[in-house]
């Protein structure tokens, strides 16, 4: 009983390699999110798990059984499609019951399980409606119920929230996670939305150009990105080029900046997450300035409601800092474009990464 295993999975289309040697183990009850820019191969991977795309090489195992050559209708997967893919000519109940019917479940048991599934996704009493009579969020929940009701060994979600508006997205995300936990479903979710991936997954797998770039808990991947492409794809960051001067100190132009360690002489890129950058206005007598600060000038202030971002021009390039929006009596409140500030951060907040830069492309 080991959920889902992908062994050295590869898929090519002519000369194009869509999925390049992906190996992945999804434990029973685990939710793994495949994250990457569009066209990175994550959807192809999901479709290989469901059986819609035959792999060029490699194997797919569900609960230890090799299903690589098994057609989709004989695999025990439940998939939620991006556009929901509800059957437009069937009622909600018939949609949900379709999988049970195909499995030869008797009518009275089917009806009981449909009712149960409708209750699970909070759509009691809407069984007789046609899909087009439901809102987007309700349709999404029907798609969930339809995939869940057959108790699949593997639950597959293809960009499940991309057709919902922002408010509904957060709501349905929480619902999906709660259902998945409650039912202990082995789940693979595909998304290009980093927030979705960070909040919902037990484990994140960042994919680019068909290859796994990094795999780990959302926290690990965000805090300790394996390379520059992962760092810049996941979350916002500032990157500064330079050289390690001594362990814990990084030279960028004429400034020495705090960093997490490093070997003297190495050329590196310093990665700073905006929420780790402290910012203080430069007062007339410099009393409020931070002791080992790094001077800069605010160029843009972006008010995001609960949070505020400051883009600060420095001699080493623009640095992004963010903070919960300051209260009206906070000195930061009055900062505007052109004001001089001091920036600082803890040593461990300055991550050092190899300078090879291969940005992930959003196509």
């Amino acid at each position: 009983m080991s959920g889902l295993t992908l062994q050295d999975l590869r898929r090519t289309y002519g000369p194009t390699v869509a999925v390049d040697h992906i190996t992945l183990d999804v434990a029973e009850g685990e939710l793994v999110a495949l994250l990457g820019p569009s066209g990175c191969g994550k959807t192809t991977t999901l479709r290989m798990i469901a059986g819609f795309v035959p792999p060029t090489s490699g194997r797919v195992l569900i609960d230890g059984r090799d299903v690589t050559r098994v057609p989709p209708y004989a695999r025990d997967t439940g998939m939620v499609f991006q556009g929901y893919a509800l059957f437009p000519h069937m009622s909600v109940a018939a949609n949900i019951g379709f999988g049970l019917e195909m499995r030869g479940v008797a009518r009275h048991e089917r009806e009981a399980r449909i009712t149960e599934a409708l209750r699970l996704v909070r759509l009691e009493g809407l069984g007789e409606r046609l899909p087009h009579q439901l809102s987007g969020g309700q349709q999404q929940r029907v798609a969930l119920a339809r995939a869940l009701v057959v108790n699949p060994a593997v639950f597959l979600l293809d960009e499940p929230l991309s057709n919902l508006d922002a408010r509904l997205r957060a709501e349905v995300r929480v619902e999906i996670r709660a259902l998945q936990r409650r039912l202990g479903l082995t789940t693979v979710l595909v998304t290009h939305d980093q927030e979705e991936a960070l909040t919902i997954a037990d484990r994140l797998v960042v994919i680019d150009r068909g290859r796994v770039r990094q795999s780990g808990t959302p926290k690990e991947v965000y805090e300790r990105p394996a390379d520059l492409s992962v760092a810049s794809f996941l979350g916002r960051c500032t990157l500064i080029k330079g050289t390690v001067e001594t362990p814990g100190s990084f030279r960028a132009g004429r400034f020495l900046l705090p960093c997490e360690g490093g070997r003297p002489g190495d050329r590196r890129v310093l990665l700073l997450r905006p929420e780790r950058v402290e910012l203080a206005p430069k007062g007339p007598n410099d009393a409020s300035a931070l002791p080992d600060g790094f001077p800069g000038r605010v160029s843009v202030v972006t008010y995001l409601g609960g949070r505020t971002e400051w883009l600060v021009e420095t001699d080493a390039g623009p640095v992004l800092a963010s903070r919960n929006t300051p209260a009206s009596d906070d000195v930061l409140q009055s900062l505007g474009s052109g004001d001089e500030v001091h920036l600082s951060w803890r040593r461990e907040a300055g991550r050092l990464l190899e300078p090879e830069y291969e940005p992930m492309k959003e196509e």
Partner: protein
Amino acid sequence: MAQLSGGNGWRYTRQGAAGIVFAIVLLPMVTVIWLSFFDDAVISFPPSGYGWRWYLNAWETHQFGRSFIVSVEVALASTVIGVMLGTAAAYGLERGKLPVSGAVQTLLLGPLAIPGVVLGTGLFILFVQIDNTIDLRVVGTLPGLIAAHTLLTVPWAVRLVSVSLHGVNRSIEEAAKNLGARPFTVFRRITLPMMRSGMIAASLFGFVQSFENLDLTLLLTGPGRSTLPVEMLNYLEFRVDPTLAAVAAVQIAIIGVLMLVTDRFVSLGRVVS
């Protein structure tokens, strides 16, 4: 206020324009129906009286009754055959991975673009050749007419069913497969019902196309195997009285009822646009 009345002005202009278009479309039909009730044998304005006389005359003219039956037979058969062939073709073109599907689609829509007289002449020569070569009589037979009219119904079926399939997200069929449906079950339970509206619309349009066709049919009819439009033309050669208007009015009524009935099953406006 000024802006508001300007908006109203625009709305009235638009409604007026739509009204004029409707009038242009409906006027000939209304005229034909009106004419059919004139009492005079020679059409003149104003008529000396109104009556059902020409309807009775049409009923008693056996050539109309006989050819009406032939027309219905031909239209029904060619519609059934055409919709079956056209649906199969549309499904193959939309879902198959044919490298030349564009060319095949154009070919299948071809009969719509060729003038009926040209098509009819070509078919006539072909039928005569068949007769000469394998001694099988085709011209003037019911199967020959049905075969010819199937050329009229196939393009409509290909077009309308393709459109109804084209709008369908292919992942709907994948979802059925994912839930355990084998390929044939997917076709029967999911794909076919989604093509249904296109097929119904194609049946209606195919039927009407075949029923009212004159130019293609002209050369292919035989004694006792003539369609209604051809008989109407024959009648016109000898007599000009409102009998034809009466026959036409009956046709308009039949097709109108057909459209209303069809519209109950599928919204025609949606399928055709």
